[in-house]
């Protein structure tokens, strides 16, 4: 099975692209990467959701954890590219405004 995410790191930015389905079965894989990203205290993180087809509350929780972790160490996080079902879920949870989606 293809990895549900891809990470690219530079000195200036960490880019996380999430694709496919981010759900209760796949979120634990991403959670390990999220812990690594948070531990690196990045100044800027961009989460690209353009390739994400489906998300559930477990997937949302993983992204919330990343957002809080990056912000708590003074970094900035931007989420881009959310569409279709994932965007509807963020709107329903009223997180679209927090994440500027």
């Amino acid at each position: 099975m293809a990895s549900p995410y891809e990470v690219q790191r530079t000195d200036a930015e960490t880019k996380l692209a999430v694709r496919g389905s981010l759900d209760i079965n796949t979120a634990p894989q991403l959670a390990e990467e999220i812990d690594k990203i948070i531990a690196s205290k990045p100044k800027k993180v961009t989460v690209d959701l353009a390739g994400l087809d489906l998300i559930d509350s477990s997937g949302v929780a993983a992204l919330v954890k990343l957002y809080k972790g990056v912000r708590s160490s003074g970094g900035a996080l931007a989420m881009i590219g959310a569409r279709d079902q994932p965007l509807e879920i963020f709107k329903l949870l009223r997180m679209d405004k927090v994440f500027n989606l």
Partner: protein
Amino acid sequence: MAAPIRLIVPGTLRYRAIAVRLVAESARLVSQSARQDPKNPLANEVRDPFDTAVVSAFAEIFNNVAVHAYKRRDAGAIEIAITPSDRELLIELTDHGDPFDIDEVAPLPAELDETTLPEGGMGIHIAKTMLDEMTYEPGPPNQWRLRKVLPATRAVSNGRS
């Protein structure tokens, strides 16, 4: 009315994708939504609003049963009955795991910001908000009833006036 579509799967997350795919296809029977990529019938994409609501809600309830009723153990089955009609989809789930108190599920914070963003407890809220009707009868057996109605404008455009 046609007989319900029935699926019985072990109540673990391993079988979630099978159940979700069946529900997505059942939703398409009602919404008559087209696939974005007809050459890829296994694609996970769900774009139609009706399909989105049904799949999102069902996935959360399946998670709930596997995690809370069956405690992530292979401890029983989930019986799923799906009844599509011209204007609505009814999904009934039955499990024989532990019941839970749905009234204890906390609502979302009134104001969301960096400090109040929830990291859990969102599943029931998603399901309830996405559906026209959601009921839970604790058991055993525990019984969920999920109902989504196709908006009247969609029914007309689908030739179901």
